């Protein structure tokens, strides 16, 4: 048995990196082999993570609670409560979590490890002194690894077929009217780099490492979107994608800097590190992560329970207010306050007695190893929003969603892997991973962002005719669903949908890729139609995907969307003012069903609208259809449980529920409960506990409403595009303005061009102008002034100074001319002069001496 199976996942992460390096060095000449190497690498990663999952599953609680509660040692049990991220059992019991984490068996999850990437020697150790690279494997990581590696493997296989034409030495690019050399290996090089970065992102245990991967996946997406860089459209899209992402990344950096400054670490969960103690021997000591530092535990550092009257703060942000409202925050004393401006940070070793209801709490404004510290509440909110901004960029949420549709310029497998299944989902994953960091305000922002996004994207998808763009907007919309779910506290629902969506959206993209491949890179649905006969496998598999995304019962999408609607409903019930958060998704479900079926009908049914395309259309080779079939299978069954027709018996959901942050568990005996979300969860899980709410069971209600709405969408699509009762053209004429508005994607690009791009360019030109004419103007001007001055100076010299000099010279000359008569040239006169001089000098000297003395 492995001592720490976490390393399996590390190995899985490194495999694609190795293949990347190999291909980078020598791939150029390997041709088809390059594809095999990359595929082998990611396939190996899948196998490794499967083994890792096999290690993990016994602990996952999938096999009933009883098993885990009996099978696992108490310490294991207790430790579940330790860092508030990973799953706590419902019957969580109050253990000494910190001490237990120290004692825990490394073979038990969460599996951890890491090394210091950069550190400073000043400041208190453990407080903003080290940036780590570490791995943290819990249930979420495991399931994400399985999903990513599986989908990626399938897509790699698909790509070996789809990119085959890149193998020939000369490729003609129809859009750029250029003939270029094929770059088959380069594609797989980038893909490998992407897989490494993505897995690294999921593996990371700290925001810093996540940020690194964040940027790396971003650059991979840039490279792959710009794969056909001969096309200006492609390079533009690549730039747009990366720069838009950079907007989010800037937010991410700021969020990290805030947390780093006030909490002194970027590590999310608690970590055990080997520390050299005073006596020089290595001891395992616990370093609380961000979660434990921000959310109040029910134990102090020494495992002693905290005073009971504080239990309403357990698992919450503890807001405090300075007792004397001094501006100088350092070592002032605080009191617990409902809406205090500060939040306690439990960074250092603190004792129960530090924290009491009545007496004041001493806390420093700097992160400290001793006692408590505080951070401003606004900073906490800002940090949350900053991190979320990163997710907005990556997951193409409103208002940064504009890059994703353009990203369809990349090859279709790229769209499937990066821009549907994995990278764009990374934002959602991060929100789920960093969930305990988000204050209620932030969660609300997340929820609304999701709601707005899903509606806007779906509405645009209604009118798109490019098959890939429809899928792109549907991706944005689905990501919006996930964000919404997370925002309303549906942690499970969000990640659940993330997983299911990964499969069926990858399926849909690959299907569209197969269609495009079959139609010789024709992407316009208006030129397709009636392709069912030509490519049956593609059609059927895509139908499965369409049903899944539309939320047809027994398809994976059904379960996850149901969960989302339930969460939204539960939230809305508790916060009626946010009713939109339920209505928007409800409408959008219908829209989703509509545009997806529209896509399918337009592509596969009816009569061919373009004979040329139709004739050349053909089914794809097996390397492309096989992944389709596998994915179709998964997108049907991935969410099943027993019995399948019970939407809430989904094994995957159960698994995730087990991984949910503990403070979301609304159990009577769970000491850590979030004041803001726990009630919502509680209502979602046990509505009977809320007799005052006069509503039918939220599950039935939300499920029925969603189903109804999806059915409406389906019927509409069928009537219009299958039976053809309604003429879409006529509808467009009728709602011309709405149509153009949607066709122009709500004019986002134009707006951004006017409020972002143009101003930036103008500002740039202003800077340049300022340099050229103001600063350099000053410099050159001063130089010119100096020259002028020197000229005047020259004149002055000539006129006045030289004049004076010459004058004196003349005078002296005159005197001398007179004096020269003294030079009689007569020896005897000279003798006389000598004598006279002697006399004169003597006289003078004696006179002076007389004066002096």
């Amino acid at each position, binding site marked *: 048995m492995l001592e720490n199976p976490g390393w399996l996942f590390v190995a899985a992460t490194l495999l694609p990196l190795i293949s990347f390096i190999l291909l980078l060095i020598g791939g150029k000449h390997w041709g088809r082999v390059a594809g095999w190497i990359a595929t082998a690498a990611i396939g190996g990663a899948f196998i490794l993570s499967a083994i890792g999952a096999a290690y993990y599953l016994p602990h996952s609680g999938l096999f009933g609670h009883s098993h885990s509660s009996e099978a696992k040692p108490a310490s294991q049990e207790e430790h579940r409560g330790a860092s508030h991220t990973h799953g706590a059992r419902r019957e969580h019991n109050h253990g000494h979590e910190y001490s237990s984490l120290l004692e825990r068996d490394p073979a038990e999850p969460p599996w951890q490890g890491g090394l*210091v*990437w*950069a*550190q*400073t*020697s*000043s*400041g208190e150790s453990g*407080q*903003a*002194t080290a940036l780590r690279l570490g791995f943290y494997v819990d249930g979420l990581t495991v399931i994400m690894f399985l999903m990513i590696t599986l989908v990626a493997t399938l897509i790699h296989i698909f790509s070996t077929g789809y990119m085959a034409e890149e193998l020939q030495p000369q490729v003609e690019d129809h859009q*750029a009217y*250029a003939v*270029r*050399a094929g770059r088959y290996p380069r594609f797989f090089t980038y893909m490998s780099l992407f897989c490494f970065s993505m897995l690294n992102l999921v593996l990371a245990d700290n925001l*810093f490492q996540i*940020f*690194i*991967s964040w*940027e*790396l996946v971003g*650059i991979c997406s*840039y490279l792959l979107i*710009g794969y056909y*860089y*001969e096309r*200006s459209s492609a*390079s*533009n899209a*690549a*730039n747009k994608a*990366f*720069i838009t992402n*950079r*907007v989010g*990344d*800037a937010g991410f*950096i*700021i969020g*990290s*800097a*805030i947390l*780093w*400054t006030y909490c002194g670490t970027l590590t999310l969960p608690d970590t055990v590190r080997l520390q050299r103690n005073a006596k020089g021997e290595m001891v395992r000591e616990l370093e609380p992560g961000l979660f434990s530092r921000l959310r109040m535990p029910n134990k102090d550092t020494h495992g002693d329970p905290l005073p009971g009257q504080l239990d309403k703060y357990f698992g919450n942000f503890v807001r405090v207010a300075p007792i004397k409202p001094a501006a100088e925050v350092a070592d002032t004393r605080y009191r617990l306050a409902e809406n205090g401006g500060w939040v306690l940070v439990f960074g250092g070793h603190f004792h129960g007695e530090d924290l009491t209801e009545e007496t004041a709490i001493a806390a*420093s404004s*700097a*992160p400290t190893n001793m006692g408590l510290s505080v951070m401003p509440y606004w900073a906490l909110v800002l940090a949350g929003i900053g991190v979320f901004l990163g997710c907005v960029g990556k997951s193409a949420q409103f208002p940064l969603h504009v890059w994703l549709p353009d990203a369809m310029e990349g090859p279709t497998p790229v769209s499937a892997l990066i821009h549907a299944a994995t990278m764009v989902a990374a934002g959602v994953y991060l929100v789920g991973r960093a969930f305990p960091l988000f204050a209620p305000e932030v969660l609300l922002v997340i929820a609304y962002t999701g709601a707005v996004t899903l509606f806007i994207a779906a509405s645009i998808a209604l009118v798109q005719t490019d098959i890939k763009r429809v899928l792109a907007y549907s991706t944005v919309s689905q990501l919006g669903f996930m964000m919404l779910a997370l925002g309303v506290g549906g942690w499970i629902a969000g990640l659940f949908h993330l997983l299911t969506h990964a499969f069926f959206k990858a399926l849909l993209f690959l299907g569209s890729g197969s269609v495009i491949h079959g139609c010789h890179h024709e992407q316009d649905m208006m030129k397709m139609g009636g392709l069912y006969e030509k490519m049956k496998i593609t059609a059927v598999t895509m139908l499965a995907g369409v049903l899944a995304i539309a939320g047809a019962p027994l398809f994976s999408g059904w379960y996850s969307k149901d969960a989302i609607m339930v969460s939204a409903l539960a939230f809305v019930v508790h916060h009626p003012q946010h009713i939109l958060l339920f209505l928007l998704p409800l409408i959008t479900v219908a829209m989703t069903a509509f545009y997806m079926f529209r896509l399918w009908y337009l592509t596969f049914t009816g009569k061919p609208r373009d004979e040329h395309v139709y004739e050349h259309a053909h089914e794809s080779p097996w390397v492309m259809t096989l992944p389709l079939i596998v994915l179709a299978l998964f997108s049907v069954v991935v969410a099943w449980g027993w019995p399948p027709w019970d939407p809430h018996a989904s094994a995957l959901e159960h698994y995730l529920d087990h991984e949910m942050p503990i403070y979301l568990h609304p159990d009577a005996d769970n000491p850590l409960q979030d004041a803001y979300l726990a009630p919502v969860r509680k209502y979602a899980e046990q509505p009977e506990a809320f007799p005052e709410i006069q509503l039918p069971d939220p599950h039935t209600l939300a499920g029925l409403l969603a189903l109804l709405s999806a059915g409406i969408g389906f019927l509409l699509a069928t009537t219009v595009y299958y039976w053809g009762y309604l003429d879409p053209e006529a509808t467009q004429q009728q709602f011309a303005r709405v149509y153009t508005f949607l066709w122009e994607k709500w004019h986002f690009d134009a707006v951004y061009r006017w409020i972002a791009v143009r101003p*930036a*360019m103008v*500002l*740039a*030109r*202003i*800077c*340049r102008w300022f*340099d050229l004419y103001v*600063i*350099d103007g000053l*410099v050159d001007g001063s*130089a010119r002034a100096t020259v002028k001055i020197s000229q005047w100076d020259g004149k002055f010299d000539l006129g006045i100074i030289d004049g004076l000099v010459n004058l004196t010279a003349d005078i002296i000359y005159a005197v001398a001319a007179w004096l020269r008569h003294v030079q009689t040239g007569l020896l005897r006169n000279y003798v006389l002069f000598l004598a006279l001089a002697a006399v004169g000098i003597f006289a003078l000297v004696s006179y002076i001496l007389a004066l002096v003395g």
Partner: protein
Amino acid sequence: MPYDTFRYFEYDLWLMSGIIFVPSLFALLLLFIPKGQKNWMRITALAGTVITLLLSVFLLVDWYQLLDTYRLTDQTGHTLAARADIARIRESARGHLDTDLVARRPWIARFNIEYFLGADGISVPLVVLTALICVLAIGASWNIENAVRGYLILFLILETGMMGTFLALDFFLFYVFWEVMLLPMYFLIGLWGGPRREYAAIKFFLFTLLGSVLILIAMIAFYFADLTPLRDWLEQRAQQTPSEELRREAQALEQAVRQRHGSGETALHTFDILLLHKVGRESARLEWDYQQAERQYEEVLASRDSQRIEQARQHRTTIAQLKERHQIFSPTFQFIMFVLLFIGFAIKLPMVPFHTWLPDAHVEAPTPISMILAGILLKMGGYGFLRIAYPICPWAAYALAWWIALFGVISIVYGAFAAMAQTDFKKLVAYSSISHMGYVQLGIAIWTSMERSQFWNWGINGAMFQMLAHGLSSPGMFFMVGVIYDRLHHRDLHRMGGLANAMPLYTGLSVIIFFAAMGLPGLCGFPGEFFTVLGTWNFTPPGSEWAGKIFAILAAATVIITAGYILWTLQRVYLGHRPPSPDLPEITFREFLCALPIVVLAILLGVWPRAVLDWVEPSLAALLRDLASTHGW
């Protein structure tokens, strides 16, 4: 008798002197190569730079070993000051030590000017960087055809100047090398430059000369201060707080003063930078104590406890007397001197608004000289901050931290925007340099209290790392520009494009280098910026609560603009499908060899910055501790 100074071979003296003067020796050698033997001249120059590189690598290894020995034994012993003190103390007893990387010889005894060299974690990486970039630059100047001999000789003299600037610990010596650096550069730009070379050269010369004049003034002002009072003060402190360090410092200073008085002087005037550090530190410390006493007194005044008031007044007067007697650099003096030094070094950095010499100089200078300019000369500014301006005038540095950071941020943002508007490839790179060096200034500026010193440490580490990273990436970019300029004979971004298909290898290398400049994680540009921003949020200068936060947001937001102009440039130059001319030869093997080390190092530093930080950080931490200790911690 192992330490007999006659038979004794002081290894580090010869090593460091070799690093400085080997280039000039080869410059001499060049004089004897027969006319027209251009290749032999180039090979000779290359040999000179390569040997210098080897020597600097030796220096690096020695420094690493030295650090290791001290890591185990004495935590503070590795600092330059400590080593110099020990050297001075033992010098009187048993002659020199050959492993302490500090070498001191009298030069102009009349003015107490010494030939004083030393290396630590701040200078060693820059020395190695300089040596490396010089080798690459020689490689890049292989295709310079006119007046090869003169060109190479000036180049080698330039290298001597740079090395000396980094290794000199005597202010006078430093200044001499600083000037030695200036003149060859002027000729290299002015004679081998582009069409507007005269303008650029004059501009460069005037700007830099202005800077060095300011530095000169400060230097002379420092020299005229008599440091004798410091001796008694250090002795007092050594008695009050029995710390090994203080004792050593006092003893060494005693040594210096006695030696000086022995040669008939009554006062101690010196150009010794390390000694000036101590003076500045102690002066600032006295000022701080005095102000504390003042504040305390005012607080006590509120409570009408006559006897406590009396105590406070007593305390204040005693401190005031101490200050009167021992404070050599008064706050006002420090302010003036710091501003002089700061402007002097900020011009080199270059800091907006003193930056306009840089684009012109870069655009007109030949490629290798641009590499040197961007790679090394800009680092002189940051090095000057760390080595001279900050430690000698800590009081002013702390009081002005807000302004320094502000101008750093202005440089960051302004440079990025200006870069975006450029159409000349070289100019764009030049402005990106301005933007990147802004991070250096910001990182150095974010002075914080001792209890949160780790954040400032991140800032300074970021600054140092950014210097090295920029010292790799921007020469790389200039080299890449030069390569394409040799083929197209123009640098107009709008007339390029499609190089990716024409020269794939070249494109690959330059894309990596440009991404490094963009601050992509995994490449060398990232850690510096990230560290700096991490540290900046915490920056709360006295009086402005929000400064650090706004600066952090601006600095972080600039990565968007950076990505904007870099990606846009890549798109305009490499992407697309119409190469500007039908047949573009792929880069030659020589060019590849020049680019390769940069690429490799860029990746190495990006992936594992500790490869550098581990032996740089201790010196920075020590510096930071000294500085922070001036404000009461």
